[in-house]
């Protein structure tokens, strides 16, 4: 039996996670190599060039662009305040002079002799990059930031929304197959990372927002509820900037889907610890999955099958499309020859033994590796 390359989601109790934390433009790095950092620690800071505001002085004064330099009251590079006169026309016999005023407070950056356009730069905008995860600074990227290295439990989800947050893990439902109900969400969950069950419907999601829950980790979510929560439909899976007041990590998919037993167990094992959670998902061009990272002491880094990405006989897989969507099974055969499906499509297939003992034949594309033990 051969093997096949099949990406999967990482779920490990002993993973190493290195997060590269960089500024978008050069700035100051505020940490040192070897330093311990918390999720909230500022790693690097930069000043983004301020916003730009323009004013066409030639049009405002009714003169040719080439005449503008002689009419300026301030020099390029000078600081200006909003409404300060910056250029004045000569008028007629010294009368009827027209003025052009600064449209904002900042610096007069340039004035074009071709178009007559003046460009004003507002005050720089500070940008901070935080550590996001509690760990150790393992490498400095001069002028940009640092690598933060940590070890512990790592759970990748399939889809998420919302920004990076951190909080203490609380298990809201002991049963990974039970839906999360609004009554499960308590006022004491403010700022926490709540681990739910098979699905969080709209009322439960809203209860989380209302209670100030930092992040919710749940097996499934209904597409219609997500649309209702966000106020719009997500058309392309690029997320992370949603501002609904809750970061959500969906571990299995859309619909009601029991959270994988291993995921639930690993998160239960770290209940009470501080987790870093990101909802950012990008399926295309630089795949990024949402994640829950819980740093803690580990002795040996676990090497899992999903790390290799290669599936072989005995590999545990999750079926990720109907029929049998969500079920786990063991690979029993990976025939090299393509075979015909019910649809008559000829594709590469595999045979999976389900937990029930039933053997099913599926397209290879419809399974993903999981670090579960059966």
């Amino acid at each position: 039996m051969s093997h096949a390359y099949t990406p999967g989601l990482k779920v490990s109790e002993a993973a190493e996670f290195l997060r590269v934390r960089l500024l978008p433009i050069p700035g100051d790095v505020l940490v040192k190599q070897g330093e311990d950092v918390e999720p909230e620690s500022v790693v690097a800071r930069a000043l983004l060039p301020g916003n730009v505001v323009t004013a066409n002085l030639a049009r405002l004064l009714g003169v040719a662009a080439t005449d503008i330099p002689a009419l300026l009251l301030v020099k390029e590079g000078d600081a200006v305040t909003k409404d300060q006169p910056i250029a004045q026309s000569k008028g007629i016999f010294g009368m009827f002079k027209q003025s052009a005023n600064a449209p904002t407070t900042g610096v007069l950056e340039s004035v074009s002799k071709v178009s007559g356009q003046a460009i004003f730069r507002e005050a720089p905008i500070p940008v901070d990059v935080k550590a996001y995860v509690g760990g150790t600074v393992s490498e400095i990227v001069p002028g940009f930031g640092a690598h933060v290295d940590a070890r512990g439990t790592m759970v990748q989800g399939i889809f998420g929304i919302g920004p990076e947050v951190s909080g203490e893990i609380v298990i809201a439902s002991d049963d990974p197959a039970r839906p999360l109900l609004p009554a499960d969400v308590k006022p004491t969950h403010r700022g926490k990372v709540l681990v739910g069950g098979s699905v969080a419907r709209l009322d439960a999601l809203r209860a989380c927002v209302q209670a100030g829950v930092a992040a919710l980790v749940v097996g499934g979510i209904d597409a219609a509820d997500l649309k209702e929560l966000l106020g719009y439909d997500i058309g392309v899976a690029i997320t992370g900037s949603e501002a609904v007041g809750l970061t959500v990590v969906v571990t299995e998919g859309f619909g009601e889907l029991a959270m994988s037993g291993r995921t639930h167990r690993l998160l239960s094992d770290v209940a009470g610890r501080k987790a870093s959670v990101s909802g950012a998902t990008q399926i295309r061009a630089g795949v990024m999955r949402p994640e829950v990272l819980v740093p803690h002491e580990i002795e040996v880094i676990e090497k899992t099958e999903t790390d290799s990405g290669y599936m072989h006989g005995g590999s545990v897989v999750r079926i990720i499309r109907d029929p049998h969507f969500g079920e786990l099974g063991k690979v029993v055969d990976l025939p090299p020859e393509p075979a015909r499906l019910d649809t008559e499509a000829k594709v590469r297939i595999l045979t999976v033994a389900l937990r029930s003992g039933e053997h099913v034949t599926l397209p290879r594309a419809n399974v993903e590796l999981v670090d579960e033990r059966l």
Partner: protein
Amino acid sequence: MTQPIRSILATDCGSTTTKAILIELTDEGYRLKVRGEAPTTVEKPFDDVTVGVINAVTEVSELAGRPLVGEDGRIIVPQQGDAGVDLYLSTSSAGGGLQMLVAGVVRTMTAESAERAALGAGAIVMDVICSNDKRQPHEQIARIRHLRPDMILLSGGVDGGTTSHVAELAELIGAADPKPRLGSGYELPVVFAGNVDARGAVREALQDKTALSIVDNLRPTLDHEHLDPARDQIHDLFMEHVMAQAPGYDKLKSWTSAPVMPTPGAVGAIIQTVAKQRDISVIGVDIGGATTDVFSVFPSAETGEPVFNRTVSANLGMSYSISNVMASAGIENVLRWVPFDIDESELRNRIKNKMVRPTTIPSLIRDLQVEQALAREALRLSLIQHKDFATELKGKRRARDISEAFAQSGSGDTIVDMMALDLVVGSGGVLSHAPRRVQAALMLVDSFEPMGVTKLAVDSIFMMPQLGVLASIHEEAATQVFERDCLVPLGTCIAPVGTTKGGRPLATVTLELPDGRREITIGAGDLELVRLPTGQSVRCRIEPSKGVDVGHGPGVAFETEVEGGEAGILLDGRGRPIRIPSVAKERVAAIEQWIRNLDLYPRESR
């Protein structure tokens, strides 16, 4: 005499899959030998596109039974005995392809010409900034800063015209000081293709802040578009700057016998080659996971010259963007193609699950039918966008005759004439891998609604990108493989346009089939298929009823030759636009009838 090229290996590094084909010179000319594929590896843990290339080539090598990869891990070029190939070429759309920002002075004139140049070069156009786009300069600057494109194309002004507007645009770009999407250590490439008199001002504004290059004006006069220099420059910069930032591309670049082309640019190249060689009007469509590209070549109504257009519907695709197809088309439009009732919430979840696990494929017939319904809508919406873009040059001065004045036609009319269309070529998994070819034929007909007599074909195994790049250096090999191995003829669609009274048929079609003459009447709402194998063509007389047009004018009968294919001759009396019953029960009954008539899906599923 130089030795002919004996073998060619070409890869296309897509965002998900890297596809490799091996072409060999045989007694019959150049033919496809084998193909292989492997997941693209620009992401972690590999971070090197050549890993996926070598995996795909290794599969090809195994299937061809001869070594193509040397012990040093490189593709063996040139061919030495049985090992290696004489040419190795590649296209790429991995890492999000080429993402460009376009700027021009007037939206419908120079900015539109610039957009056409960028799209023709194979780019995804992220935004079009122009002097009259109703945004304030500071909003435009904020947008430029936010986008982080791979490249900017700046145009504006006809040669000798005013320079102030284009100078102003250059100053806005300079003030935004945009950073490239990939890599922070290099300057953003900016191509200026505008008024020659503005070059000095543009240099002053951008030379120190960007990697500025200047080429001929793409709209030297209002009546003339000159896109090639800008397109060529975009291709060069794509390789030099953009791809050089992507993981492994430096290595890939050193392996290829010609520059790596952006995938859509290569597809456009082969479509143009075919239109030119056959002297026909063509629409090509490539429906991918994230985007749908539409290419067309139609003659300009004014000059008669063939005009190439390409559009990218950036968020209409069958996996990453599938959820957006649903959002853009509306659930009713998707469901009208589905021959069964389905719970709306279940459908939404199913589509979102495909979005987050984009590589899965339908293994149930109903799942396949839902995906094909979504494909119809993605294709339909993409063609609407294409028609809006593929127009005569706007802002052109021209004399109108009296008939044009009455017809209210003018500059800016679409040149996409579905009645004049000769050939539709479909590409992309949902079309090329449709289990039955007749499914692909009907998806193309349902979404594009060709009128009159139109040939249909699909790209058998997504070979168009590789053949496009091959056409740039070996046109003969590219066209031979395109005709013999790439293009799969599906057949011909005959679609009368118009209505009749009193239940009279729309047209009568008489086919001189190999087993005898067959006369078929096409009634309103009918959809029939006459099998005619690939390679056969038959005489056909078409007699439309009064007021009905099949290509030669209302009520005008004519004779023509129609070609068969893997589907056959499709006789479509469903009207233009296609009329589908709005009541669910009647809709399901109508679709089931069409499925039966065309033998569209396996029998046990119905």
